[in-house]
Protein backbone atom coordinates (compact mmCIF):
# COMPACT_ATOMS: atom_id res chain seq x y z
CA UNK A 1 0.00 0.00 0.00
CA UNK A 2 2.77 2.45 0.93
CA UNK A 3 4.66 1.75 -2.30
CA UNK A 4 1.46 2.39 -4.27
CA UNK A 5 0.75 5.63 -2.38
CA UNK A 6 4.29 6.88 -2.90
CA UNK A 7 4.11 5.80 -6.54
CA UNK A 8 0.84 7.59 -7.28
CA UNK A 9 2.14 10.72 -5.51
CA UNK A 10 5.16 10.72 -7.83
CA UNK A 11 2.90 10.21 -10.85
CA UNK A 12 0.58 13.05 -9.85
CA UNK A 13 3.51 15.38 -9.18
CA UNK A 14 5.11 14.52 -12.53
CA UNK A 15 1.84 14.92 -14.42
CA UNK A 16 0.90 18.16 -12.66
CA UNK A 17 4.29 19.80 -13.19
CA UNK A 18 4.48 18.79 -16.84
CA UNK A 19 0.85 19.71 -17.50
CA UNK A 20 1.55 23.23 -16.20
CA UNK A 21 4.58 23.52 -18.49
CA UNK A 22 2.57 22.28 -21.48
CA UNK A 23 -0.21 24.77 -20.73
CA UNK A 24 2.34 27.59 -20.45
CA UNK A 25 3.98 26.53 -23.73
CA UNK A 26 0.58 26.23 -25.41
CA UNK A 27 1.02 22.63 -26.56
CA UNK A 28 -1.11 19.51 -26.07
CA UNK A 29 -0.81 17.42 -22.87
CA UNK A 30 1.02 14.53 -24.56
CA UNK A 31 4.37 15.25 -22.75
CA UNK A 32 2.49 15.36 -19.42
CA UNK A 33 1.10 11.87 -20.05
CA UNK A 34 4.61 10.80 -21.06
CA UNK A 35 6.00 12.13 -17.75
CA UNK A 36 3.25 10.32 -15.80
CA UNK A 37 3.92 7.05 -17.64
CA UNK A 38 7.66 7.36 -16.97
CA UNK A 39 6.89 7.99 -13.29
CA UNK A 40 4.74 4.84 -13.18
CA UNK A 41 7.69 2.84 -14.50
CA UNK A 42 10.13 4.44 -12.05
CA UNK A 43 7.76 3.86 -9.11
CA UNK A 44 7.53 0.16 -9.86
CA UNK A 45 11.09 -0.50 -8.76
CA UNK A 46 12.25 2.06 -6.17
CA UNK A 47 16.05 2.23 -6.20
CA UNK A 48 18.39 3.34 -3.46
CA UNK A 49 20.99 5.20 -5.47
CA UNK A 50 24.06 6.98 -4.18
CA UNK A 51 24.36 10.68 -5.14
CA UNK A 52 26.60 9.93 -8.13
CA UNK A 53 24.26 7.26 -9.52
CA UNK A 54 21.29 9.58 -8.92
CA UNK A 55 22.91 12.33 -10.94
CA UNK A 56 23.86 9.87 -13.68
CA UNK A 57 20.28 8.61 -13.92
CA UNK A 58 18.89 12.15 -13.76
CA UNK A 59 21.06 13.00 -16.76
CA UNK A 60 20.51 9.72 -18.62
CA UNK A 61 16.74 9.33 -18.44
CA UNK A 62 15.84 12.50 -20.40
CA UNK A 63 18.43 11.63 -23.06
CA UNK A 64 17.13 8.08 -23.38
CA UNK A 65 13.53 9.39 -23.36
CA UNK A 66 14.45 11.72 -26.22
CA UNK A 67 16.06 8.83 -28.13
CA UNK A 68 13.05 6.64 -27.56
CA UNK A 69 10.72 9.46 -28.64
CA UNK A 70 12.71 9.74 -31.89
CA UNK A 71 12.24 6.00 -32.39
CA UNK A 72 8.53 6.50 -31.68
CA UNK A 73 8.29 9.21 -34.32
CA UNK A 74 10.25 7.03 -36.75
CA UNK A 75 7.76 4.23 -36.09
CA UNK A 76 4.98 6.52 -37.34
CA UNK A 77 6.85 7.89 -40.35
CA UNK A 78 8.95 4.84 -41.37
CA UNK A 79 7.45 1.86 -39.52
CA UNK A 80 9.96 -0.77 -40.65
CA UNK A 81 12.99 1.32 -39.72
CA UNK A 82 11.32 2.30 -36.43
CA UNK A 83 10.60 -1.36 -35.66
CA UNK A 84 14.23 -2.30 -36.27
CA UNK A 85 15.45 0.51 -33.99
CA UNK A 86 12.89 -0.43 -31.33
CA UNK A 87 13.86 -4.12 -31.38
CA UNK A 88 17.55 -3.19 -31.19
CA UNK A 89 17.00 -0.85 -28.23
CA UNK A 90 14.96 -3.31 -26.19
CA UNK A 91 17.23 -6.26 -27.00
CA UNK A 92 20.25 -4.20 -25.94
CA UNK A 93 18.54 -3.28 -22.65
CA UNK A 94 18.16 -6.98 -21.77
CA UNK A 95 21.59 -8.05 -23.05
CA UNK A 96 23.20 -5.43 -20.77
CA UNK A 97 22.13 -7.57 -17.78
CA UNK A 98 25.19 -9.68 -18.60
CA UNK A 99 27.25 -6.91 -17.02
CA UNK A 100 25.96 -7.25 -13.48
CA UNK A 101 23.86 -4.88 -11.42
CA UNK A 102 25.28 -1.80 -13.13
CA UNK A 103 24.44 -3.20 -16.57
CA UNK A 104 20.95 -4.15 -15.37
CA UNK A 105 20.37 -0.61 -14.05
CA UNK A 106 21.44 0.90 -17.39
CA UNK A 107 19.23 -1.64 -19.17
CA UNK A 108 16.21 -0.65 -17.05
CA UNK A 109 16.83 3.03 -17.80
CA UNK A 110 16.92 2.27 -21.54
CA UNK A 111 13.91 -0.07 -21.52
CA UNK A 112 11.51 2.23 -19.66
CA UNK A 113 11.12 4.98 -22.32
CA UNK A 114 10.76 2.33 -25.06
CA UNK A 115 7.89 0.74 -23.12
CA UNK A 116 6.34 4.16 -22.56
CA UNK A 117 6.31 5.13 -26.25
CA UNK A 118 4.19 2.05 -26.93
CA UNK A 119 1.70 3.15 -24.29
CA UNK A 120 1.72 6.90 -24.96
CA UNK A 121 2.38 7.73 -28.61
CA UNK A 122 3.71 11.28 -28.79
CA UNK A 123 1.79 13.94 -30.66
CA UNK A 124 4.35 16.54 -31.68
CA UNK A 125 3.25 19.87 -33.05
CA UNK A 126 4.64 19.72 -36.60
CA UNK A 127 5.14 23.50 -36.60
CA UNK A 128 7.42 23.42 -33.55
CA UNK A 129 9.46 20.20 -33.59
CA UNK A 130 12.25 21.78 -31.51
CA UNK A 131 9.81 22.61 -28.72
CA UNK A 132 8.43 19.06 -28.87
CA UNK A 133 11.92 17.60 -28.46
CA UNK A 134 12.67 19.94 -25.57
CA UNK A 135 9.45 18.97 -23.81
CA UNK A 136 10.26 15.25 -24.09
CA UNK A 137 13.61 15.89 -22.41
CA UNK A 138 11.93 18.01 -19.72
CA UNK A 139 9.31 15.27 -19.19
CA UNK A 140 12.07 12.72 -18.54
CA UNK A 141 13.83 15.04 -16.08
CA UNK A 142 10.62 15.95 -14.26
CA UNK A 143 9.48 12.32 -13.98
CA UNK A 144 12.77 11.32 -12.41
CA UNK A 145 13.02 14.38 -10.15
CA UNK A 146 9.43 14.07 -8.86
CA UNK A 147 9.65 10.30 -8.29
CA UNK A 148 13.00 10.64 -6.55
CA UNK A 149 11.82 13.53 -4.36
CA UNK A 150 8.62 11.76 -3.30
CA UNK A 151 10.48 8.52 -2.54
CA UNK A 152 13.04 10.40 -0.46
CA UNK A 153 10.32 12.23 1.47
CA UNK A 154 8.55 8.93 2.14
CA UNK A 155 11.82 7.48 3.48
Amino acid at each position, binding site marked *: *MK*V*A*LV*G*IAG*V*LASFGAMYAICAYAGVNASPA*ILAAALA*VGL*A*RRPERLDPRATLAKFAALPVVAFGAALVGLTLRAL*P*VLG*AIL*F*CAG*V*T*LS*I*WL*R*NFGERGSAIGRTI*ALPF*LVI*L*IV*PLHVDSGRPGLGALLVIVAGAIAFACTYAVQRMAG
Partner: protein
Amino acid sequence: MTIHTRMALQMLVALALAFAIGLLAFAQHWSWVVLTAFIVCSGAVGRGDAIYKGLLRVGGAIGGTLVAVVVSRFVPANGVIDATVIFVVLFLGMWLRTINYAYWAACATLIFALLQGSQGDAAGPLFATRVLCIMIGALCAIAATWFIYPVRTEQLVRKRVSEARAALRDLRGGAERDLHHHLAQLERVAPPVRLHRAVFGTRGESPHPATLIDETQARLRTAIERRNVRVYVSVAVSLDGYIDDRSSARLVLSSPEDLADMRAARELCDALLVGAETLRRDDPSLRSLNAARVTVTESGDLDPTLRFFDGSARTIVLTGAAGERRLRERIGDGAEIVLVDRFDPAAIIATLADCGVHSLFVEGGTRILTAFLAAGTFDALRLGIAPFFVGDAQAPRFVNAAAFLNDAKHRLVLRSVRALGDMAVLEYEHPRA
Protein backbone atom coordinates in the same frame (compact mmCIF):
# COMPACT_ATOMS: atom_id res chain seq x y z
CA MET B 1 25.26 -18.76 -23.80
CA THR B 2 24.23 -16.79 -20.71
CA ILE B 3 20.60 -16.65 -19.56
CA HIS B 4 20.52 -12.90 -20.29
CA THR B 5 21.75 -13.31 -23.88
CA ARG B 6 19.17 -16.05 -24.30
CA MET B 7 16.40 -13.79 -22.95
CA ALA B 8 17.59 -10.93 -25.18
CA LEU B 9 17.36 -13.17 -28.27
CA GLN B 10 13.91 -14.39 -27.24
CA MET B 11 12.77 -10.78 -26.85
CA LEU B 12 14.22 -9.86 -30.26
CA VAL B 13 12.32 -12.66 -31.97
CA ALA B 14 9.10 -11.96 -30.03
CA LEU B 15 9.19 -8.26 -30.94
CA ALA B 16 10.09 -8.96 -34.59
CA LEU B 17 7.12 -11.33 -34.89
CA ALA B 18 4.82 -8.88 -33.11
CA PHE B 19 5.89 -5.97 -35.32
CA ALA B 20 5.50 -8.05 -38.49
CA ILE B 21 2.00 -9.23 -37.60
CA GLY B 22 0.96 -5.94 -35.99
CA LEU B 23 2.05 -3.70 -38.85
CA LEU B 24 0.65 -6.01 -41.52
CA ALA B 25 -2.67 -6.95 -39.90
CA PHE B 26 -3.52 -4.15 -37.47
CA ALA B 27 -2.28 -0.95 -39.06
CA GLN B 28 -3.62 1.41 -36.38
CA HIS B 29 -3.29 -0.87 -33.38
CA TRP B 30 0.03 -2.60 -33.98
CA SER B 31 1.28 -1.22 -30.64
CA TRP B 32 -1.18 -3.45 -28.71
CA VAL B 33 0.43 -6.54 -30.26
CA VAL B 34 3.98 -5.30 -29.65
CA LEU B 35 3.25 -4.10 -26.10
CA THR B 36 1.84 -7.49 -25.11
CA ALA B 37 4.79 -9.35 -26.66
CA PHE B 38 7.13 -7.02 -24.76
CA ILE B 39 5.33 -7.49 -21.42
CA VAL B 40 4.89 -11.26 -21.68
CA CYS B 41 8.46 -11.88 -22.83
CA SER B 42 10.01 -9.42 -20.40
CA GLY B 43 11.62 -11.31 -17.54
CA ALA B 44 10.01 -14.64 -18.50
CA VAL B 45 12.28 -17.15 -16.80
CA GLY B 46 10.97 -20.20 -18.65
CA ARG B 47 8.38 -21.47 -21.10
CA GLY B 48 5.77 -21.96 -18.38
CA ASP B 49 6.35 -18.44 -17.10
CA ALA B 50 5.67 -16.98 -20.57
CA ILE B 51 2.41 -18.94 -20.88
CA TYR B 52 1.37 -17.90 -17.37
CA LYS B 53 2.07 -14.22 -18.00
CA GLY B 54 0.33 -14.42 -21.37
CA LEU B 55 -2.81 -15.83 -19.71
CA LEU B 56 -2.73 -13.12 -17.03
CA ARG B 57 -2.28 -10.43 -19.66
CA VAL B 58 -5.16 -11.70 -21.81
CA GLY B 59 -7.42 -12.26 -18.79
CA GLY B 60 -6.59 -8.87 -17.33
CA ALA B 61 -7.14 -7.14 -20.67
CA ILE B 62 -10.54 -8.78 -21.16
CA GLY B 63 -11.58 -7.78 -17.62
CA GLY B 64 -10.25 -4.25 -18.03
CA THR B 65 -11.95 -3.75 -21.38
CA LEU B 66 -15.30 -4.98 -20.04
CA VAL B 67 -15.05 -2.49 -17.16
CA ALA B 68 -14.12 0.21 -19.67
CA VAL B 69 -17.27 -0.53 -21.68
CA VAL B 70 -19.37 -0.20 -18.53
CA VAL B 71 -17.61 3.00 -17.46
CA SER B 72 -17.95 4.61 -20.89
CA ARG B 73 -21.66 3.75 -20.91
CA PHE B 74 -22.57 5.02 -17.45
CA VAL B 75 -20.05 7.77 -16.70
CA PRO B 76 -20.55 10.90 -18.80
CA ALA B 77 -17.56 11.96 -20.93
CA ASN B 78 -15.88 14.74 -19.00
CA GLY B 79 -12.17 15.60 -18.90
CA VAL B 80 -12.01 16.12 -15.13
CA ILE B 81 -13.99 12.95 -14.31
CA ASP B 82 -11.95 10.91 -16.79
CA ALA B 83 -8.67 12.18 -15.31
CA THR B 84 -9.83 11.44 -11.77
CA VAL B 85 -10.98 7.93 -12.69
CA ILE B 86 -7.70 7.29 -14.53
CA PHE B 87 -5.58 8.23 -11.51
CA VAL B 88 -7.77 6.24 -9.10
CA VAL B 89 -7.55 3.17 -11.36
CA LEU B 90 -3.81 3.73 -11.70
CA PHE B 91 -3.43 3.74 -7.92
CA LEU B 92 -5.52 0.57 -7.61
CA GLY B 93 -3.40 -1.08 -10.29
CA MET B 94 -0.13 -0.14 -8.58
CA TRP B 95 -1.48 -1.45 -5.29
CA LEU B 96 -2.98 -4.70 -6.58
CA ARG B 97 0.01 -5.50 -8.79
CA THR B 98 1.76 -6.85 -5.70
CA ILE B 99 -1.03 -9.44 -5.37
CA ASN B 100 -1.31 -10.55 -8.99
CA TYR B 101 -0.16 -9.15 -12.31
CA ALA B 102 -3.64 -9.74 -13.79
CA TYR B 103 -5.02 -6.85 -11.70
CA TRP B 104 -2.38 -4.53 -13.12
CA ALA B 105 -3.13 -5.75 -16.65
CA ALA B 106 -6.84 -5.09 -16.08
CA CYS B 107 -6.24 -1.60 -14.63
CA ALA B 108 -3.72 -0.69 -17.36
CA THR B 109 -6.16 -1.80 -20.07
CA LEU B 110 -8.93 0.23 -18.44
CA ILE B 111 -6.66 3.29 -18.36
CA PHE B 112 -5.74 2.94 -22.06
CA ALA B 113 -9.40 2.58 -22.92
CA LEU B 114 -10.30 5.68 -20.90
CA LEU B 115 -7.42 7.64 -22.50
CA GLN B 116 -8.60 6.65 -25.95
CA GLY B 117 -12.22 7.23 -24.95
CA SER B 118 -11.35 10.75 -23.95
CA GLN B 119 -9.86 11.16 -27.40
CA GLY B 120 -13.17 10.17 -29.00
CA ASP B 121 -12.44 6.47 -29.46
CA ALA B 122 -15.02 4.45 -27.55
CA ALA B 123 -13.91 1.26 -25.83
CA GLY B 124 -16.79 -0.90 -26.95
CA PRO B 125 -16.28 -1.26 -30.71
CA LEU B 126 -12.59 -2.00 -30.28
CA PHE B 127 -13.09 -4.72 -27.69
CA ALA B 128 -12.65 -7.65 -30.07
CA THR B 129 -9.70 -6.03 -31.84
CA ARG B 130 -7.96 -5.27 -28.57
CA VAL B 131 -8.36 -8.79 -27.23
CA LEU B 132 -7.26 -10.29 -30.55
CA CYS B 133 -4.15 -8.06 -30.63
CA ILE B 134 -3.28 -8.99 -27.06
CA MET B 135 -3.72 -12.70 -27.74
CA ILE B 136 -1.50 -12.51 -30.81
CA GLY B 137 1.14 -10.53 -28.89
CA ALA B 138 1.11 -13.13 -26.10
CA LEU B 139 1.43 -15.93 -28.66
CA CYS B 140 4.44 -14.17 -30.26
CA ALA B 141 6.17 -14.07 -26.85
CA ILE B 142 5.25 -17.68 -26.02
CA ALA B 143 6.50 -18.87 -29.42
CA ALA B 144 9.83 -17.08 -28.90
CA THR B 145 10.35 -18.54 -25.42
CA TRP B 146 9.25 -21.97 -26.65
CA PHE B 147 11.51 -22.28 -29.68
CA ILE B 148 14.49 -19.91 -29.18
CA TYR B 149 16.94 -21.48 -26.73
CA PRO B 150 14.03 -22.62 -24.54
CA VAL B 151 14.27 -23.07 -20.77
CA ARG B 152 12.11 -25.97 -19.54
CA THR B 153 10.15 -24.87 -16.48
CA GLU B 154 10.44 -28.20 -14.66
CA GLN B 155 14.23 -28.22 -15.06
CA LEU B 156 14.37 -24.66 -13.76
CA VAL B 157 12.21 -25.52 -10.74
CA ARG B 158 14.32 -28.57 -9.87
CA LYS B 159 17.50 -26.47 -10.17
CA ARG B 160 16.12 -23.79 -7.81
CA VAL B 161 14.85 -26.43 -5.34
CA SER B 162 18.24 -28.16 -5.41
CA GLU B 163 20.06 -24.85 -4.73
CA ALA B 164 17.74 -24.04 -1.82
CA ARG B 165 18.17 -27.48 -0.26
CA ALA B 166 21.97 -27.21 -0.60
CA ALA B 167 21.79 -23.87 1.25
CA LEU B 168 19.76 -25.52 4.04
CA ARG B 169 22.36 -28.30 4.31
CA ASP B 170 25.19 -25.72 4.46
CA LEU B 171 23.27 -23.88 7.15
CA ARG B 172 23.18 -26.93 9.39
CA GLY B 173 26.96 -27.03 9.04
CA GLY B 174 27.11 -23.53 10.49
CA ALA B 175 27.65 -21.65 7.20
CA GLU B 176 25.89 -18.32 6.58
CA ARG B 177 23.38 -18.52 3.73
CA ASP B 178 20.89 -15.95 2.41
CA LEU B 179 17.69 -17.97 2.77
CA HIS B 180 15.49 -15.01 1.75
CA HIS B 181 17.23 -15.04 -1.64
CA HIS B 182 16.36 -18.71 -2.17
CA LEU B 183 12.79 -18.10 -0.99
CA ALA B 184 12.43 -15.30 -3.56
CA GLN B 185 14.04 -17.37 -6.33
CA LEU B 186 11.54 -20.18 -5.72
CA GLU B 187 8.61 -17.76 -5.59
CA ARG B 188 9.68 -16.38 -8.96
CA VAL B 189 9.32 -19.76 -10.68
CA ALA B 190 6.32 -20.95 -8.64
CA PRO B 191 3.22 -19.30 -10.22
CA PRO B 192 3.13 -21.23 -13.54
CA VAL B 193 3.68 -24.63 -11.91
CA ARG B 194 1.09 -23.89 -9.23
CA LEU B 195 -1.37 -23.02 -11.98
CA HIS B 196 -0.45 -26.25 -13.77
CA ARG B 197 -1.12 -28.25 -10.59
CA ALA B 198 -4.44 -26.47 -10.04
CA VAL B 199 -5.60 -27.20 -13.60
CA PHE B 200 -4.15 -30.66 -14.27
CA GLY B 201 -3.71 -31.98 -10.73
CA THR B 202 -0.82 -34.15 -9.57
CA ARG B 203 -0.09 -37.19 -11.68
CA GLY B 204 2.58 -39.85 -11.56
CA GLU B 205 4.66 -41.06 -8.68
CA SER B 206 7.22 -38.25 -8.51
CA PRO B 207 6.06 -35.14 -6.65
CA HIS B 208 4.70 -32.29 -8.75
CA PRO B 209 7.20 -29.39 -9.14
CA ALA B 210 4.74 -27.11 -7.33
CA THR B 211 4.70 -29.50 -4.38
CA LEU B 212 8.51 -29.52 -4.36
CA ILE B 213 8.48 -25.72 -4.24
CA ASP B 214 5.89 -25.60 -1.44
CA GLU B 215 7.79 -28.12 0.67
CA THR B 216 11.14 -26.38 0.17
CA GLN B 217 9.66 -22.96 0.89
CA ALA B 218 8.13 -24.28 4.12
CA ARG B 219 11.55 -25.58 5.19
CA LEU B 220 13.20 -22.28 4.28
CA ARG B 221 10.61 -20.28 6.25
CA THR B 222 11.07 -22.51 9.28
CA ALA B 223 14.85 -22.11 9.06
CA ILE B 224 14.52 -18.31 8.75
CA GLU B 225 12.19 -18.24 11.75
CA ARG B 226 14.57 -20.35 13.79
CA ARG B 227 17.56 -18.23 12.87
CA ASN B 228 15.88 -15.04 13.90
CA VAL B 229 17.63 -15.06 17.30
CA ARG B 230 18.47 -11.74 18.93
CA VAL B 231 21.90 -11.73 20.55
CA TYR B 232 22.75 -9.34 23.40
CA VAL B 233 26.37 -9.33 24.58
CA SER B 234 27.06 -8.00 28.07
CA VAL B 235 30.45 -7.53 29.71
CA ALA B 236 32.03 -5.53 32.52
CA VAL B 237 35.70 -4.53 32.20
CA SER B 238 38.33 -2.67 34.16
CA LEU B 239 39.70 0.61 32.85
CA ASP B 240 42.58 -1.33 31.26
CA GLY B 241 40.24 -3.82 29.56
CA TYR B 242 40.38 -6.90 31.86
CA ILE B 243 37.34 -8.94 32.90
CA ASP B 244 39.01 -10.65 35.89
CA ASP B 245 42.31 -10.97 37.70
CA ARG B 246 44.34 -14.13 38.35
CA SER B 247 43.24 -14.67 41.94
CA SER B 248 41.02 -17.64 42.81
CA ALA B 249 38.22 -15.35 44.00
CA ARG B 250 36.04 -13.81 41.33
CA LEU B 251 36.85 -10.14 40.74
CA VAL B 252 33.77 -7.98 41.22
CA LEU B 253 33.80 -5.25 38.59
CA SER B 254 30.18 -4.10 38.62
CA SER B 255 28.58 -1.69 41.05
CA PRO B 256 25.29 -2.82 42.74
CA GLU B 257 23.38 -0.50 40.42
CA ASP B 258 25.06 -1.99 37.34
CA LEU B 259 24.39 -5.54 38.57
CA ALA B 260 20.70 -4.76 39.07
CA ASP B 261 20.46 -3.23 35.61
CA MET B 262 22.29 -6.15 34.00
CA ARG B 263 20.02 -8.68 35.73
CA ALA B 264 16.97 -6.80 34.49
CA ALA B 265 18.38 -7.04 30.96
CA ARG B 266 18.92 -10.78 31.45
CA GLU B 267 15.26 -11.28 32.19
CA LEU B 268 14.37 -10.04 28.72
CA CYS B 269 16.22 -12.96 27.14
CA ASP B 270 15.34 -16.63 26.67
CA ALA B 271 18.80 -17.91 27.53
CA LEU B 272 22.13 -16.89 29.14
CA LEU B 273 25.32 -18.14 27.51
CA VAL B 274 28.55 -18.55 29.44
CA GLY B 275 31.66 -20.40 28.27
CA ALA B 276 32.73 -23.61 30.02
CA GLU B 277 36.03 -22.09 31.12
CA THR B 278 34.18 -19.34 33.01
CA LEU B 279 31.97 -21.96 34.68
CA ARG B 280 34.99 -23.94 35.78
CA ARG B 281 36.84 -20.87 37.07
CA ASP B 282 34.11 -18.69 38.60
CA ASP B 283 31.14 -21.03 39.13
CA PRO B 284 28.66 -18.19 38.55
CA SER B 285 25.10 -18.59 39.79
CA LEU B 286 23.49 -17.13 36.63
CA ARG B 287 20.36 -16.29 38.57
CA SER B 288 17.39 -15.57 36.39
CA LEU B 289 13.65 -15.96 36.80
CA ASN B 290 12.96 -17.05 33.25
CA ALA B 291 16.05 -17.56 31.18
CA ALA B 292 17.60 -20.93 30.43
CA ARG B 293 21.32 -21.41 31.10
CA VAL B 294 23.55 -22.41 28.24
CA THR B 295 27.20 -23.33 27.98
CA VAL B 296 29.43 -24.61 25.22
CA THR B 297 32.13 -27.21 25.80
CA GLU B 298 34.11 -29.21 23.29
CA SER B 299 35.68 -31.55 25.87
CA GLY B 300 32.62 -32.05 28.08
CA ASP B 301 34.86 -31.50 31.09
CA LEU B 302 32.35 -29.96 33.51
CA ASP B 303 31.87 -30.66 37.20
CA PRO B 304 28.25 -31.71 37.99
CA THR B 305 28.45 -29.89 41.35
CA LEU B 306 28.71 -26.51 39.64
CA ARG B 307 25.89 -24.10 40.49
CA PHE B 308 25.14 -24.13 36.74
CA PHE B 309 23.66 -27.63 37.25
CA ASP B 310 21.62 -26.85 40.39
CA GLY B 311 18.40 -27.60 38.53
CA SER B 312 16.78 -24.23 39.29
CA ALA B 313 16.42 -23.42 35.58
CA ARG B 314 16.42 -25.10 32.20
CA THR B 315 20.05 -26.02 31.47
CA ILE B 316 21.52 -26.68 28.02
CA VAL B 317 25.04 -27.87 27.25
CA LEU B 318 26.19 -27.65 23.64
CA THR B 319 28.95 -30.09 22.84
CA GLY B 320 30.49 -32.21 20.11
CA ALA B 321 30.55 -35.99 19.73
CA ALA B 322 33.70 -36.26 21.88
CA GLY B 323 32.22 -34.38 24.83
CA GLU B 324 28.78 -35.96 24.69
CA ARG B 325 29.71 -39.32 26.26
CA ARG B 326 31.64 -37.71 29.12
CA LEU B 327 28.78 -35.32 29.85
CA ARG B 328 26.16 -38.08 29.86
CA GLU B 329 28.27 -40.05 32.32
CA ARG B 330 28.86 -37.07 34.62
CA ILE B 331 25.66 -35.08 34.39
CA GLY B 332 23.08 -37.61 33.28
CA ASP B 333 19.68 -35.93 33.16
CA GLY B 334 20.95 -32.80 34.91
CA ALA B 335 20.97 -30.86 31.63
CA GLU B 336 19.90 -31.07 28.02
CA ILE B 337 22.99 -32.20 26.13
CA VAL B 338 22.75 -30.98 22.55
CA LEU B 339 25.17 -31.81 19.77
CA VAL B 340 26.52 -28.92 17.76
CA ASP B 341 28.28 -29.41 14.41
CA ARG B 342 30.76 -26.60 14.93
CA PHE B 343 31.69 -24.26 17.74
CA ASP B 344 31.32 -20.97 15.88
CA PRO B 345 28.59 -18.45 16.78
CA ALA B 346 26.44 -19.16 13.68
CA ALA B 347 26.26 -22.88 14.48
CA ILE B 348 25.64 -22.18 18.19
CA ILE B 349 22.78 -19.82 17.38
CA ALA B 350 21.24 -22.17 14.81
CA THR B 351 21.32 -25.01 17.35
CA LEU B 352 19.86 -22.86 20.13
CA ALA B 353 17.13 -21.70 17.77
CA ASP B 354 16.21 -25.37 17.34
CA CYS B 355 15.91 -25.50 21.16
CA GLY B 356 13.36 -22.67 21.09
CA VAL B 357 15.72 -19.83 22.04
CA HIS B 358 14.81 -16.55 20.35
CA SER B 359 16.96 -14.18 22.40
CA LEU B 360 20.37 -14.91 23.84
CA PHE B 361 22.28 -13.03 26.54
CA VAL B 362 26.01 -13.68 26.10
CA GLU B 363 28.02 -13.06 29.30
CA GLY B 364 31.50 -14.43 28.65
CA GLY B 365 34.22 -15.34 29.03
CA THR B 366 36.94 -14.15 26.74
CA ARG B 367 36.75 -16.94 24.12
CA ILE B 368 32.98 -16.73 23.76
CA LEU B 369 33.02 -12.92 23.70
CA THR B 370 35.81 -12.89 21.11
CA ALA B 371 33.99 -15.41 18.90
CA PHE B 372 30.66 -13.54 18.93
CA LEU B 373 32.11 -10.04 18.66
CA ALA B 374 34.71 -10.90 16.00
CA ALA B 375 32.09 -12.56 13.78
CA GLY B 376 29.67 -9.67 14.31
CA THR B 377 27.07 -12.19 15.51
CA PHE B 378 25.30 -9.87 17.92
CA ASP B 379 22.66 -7.18 17.87
CA ALA B 380 23.69 -5.17 20.91
CA LEU B 381 26.72 -4.85 23.15
CA ARG B 382 26.45 -3.64 26.74
CA LEU B 383 29.85 -2.60 28.06
CA GLY B 384 30.23 -1.66 31.73
CA ILE B 385 33.51 0.07 32.65
CA ALA B 386 34.68 -0.21 36.27
CA PRO B 387 36.71 2.71 37.67
CA PHE B 388 39.94 0.84 38.43
CA PHE B 389 42.85 -0.97 36.79
CA VAL B 390 43.85 -4.64 36.98
CA GLY B 391 47.32 -4.10 35.57
CA ASP B 392 48.20 -7.78 35.06
CA ALA B 393 49.13 -8.77 31.53
CA GLN B 394 48.30 -12.44 32.31
CA ALA B 395 44.78 -11.69 33.53
CA PRO B 396 41.84 -12.51 31.18
CA ARG B 397 41.07 -9.68 28.83
CA PHE B 398 37.72 -8.57 27.40
CA VAL B 399 38.60 -10.07 23.99
CA ASN B 400 41.58 -11.83 22.47
CA ALA B 401 43.32 -10.71 19.29
CA ALA B 402 41.10 -11.54 16.30
CA ALA B 403 39.92 -10.23 12.93
CA PHE B 404 36.92 -8.24 14.10
CA LEU B 405 34.12 -7.45 11.67
CA ASN B 406 33.72 -4.07 13.34
CA ASP B 407 37.04 -2.40 12.57
CA ALA B 408 37.75 1.32 12.13
CA LYS B 409 35.76 1.37 8.88
CA HIS B 410 32.80 -0.56 10.30
CA ARG B 411 31.99 1.13 13.57
CA LEU B 412 29.28 0.15 15.99
CA VAL B 413 26.48 2.58 16.72
CA LEU B 414 26.64 4.09 20.22
CA ARG B 415 23.06 4.09 21.55
CA SER B 416 23.47 5.24 25.16
CA VAL B 417 25.95 6.17 27.89
CA ARG B 418 24.80 5.85 31.50
CA ALA B 419 26.37 6.22 34.95
CA LEU B 420 25.26 3.37 37.22
CA GLY B 421 26.89 3.89 40.61
CA ASP B 422 30.57 4.32 39.80
CA MET B 423 30.27 2.35 36.54
CA ALA B 424 30.02 3.86 33.07
CA VAL B 425 27.67 1.70 30.97
CA LEU B 426 27.82 2.05 27.21
CA GLU B 427 25.33 0.39 24.88
CA TYR B 428 26.21 -0.20 21.25
CA GLU B 429 24.00 -1.43 18.46
CA HIS B 430 25.28 -3.65 15.71
CA PRO B 431 22.94 -3.37 12.72
CA ARG B 432 22.92 -6.74 10.96
CA ALA B 433 23.15 -6.70 7.18
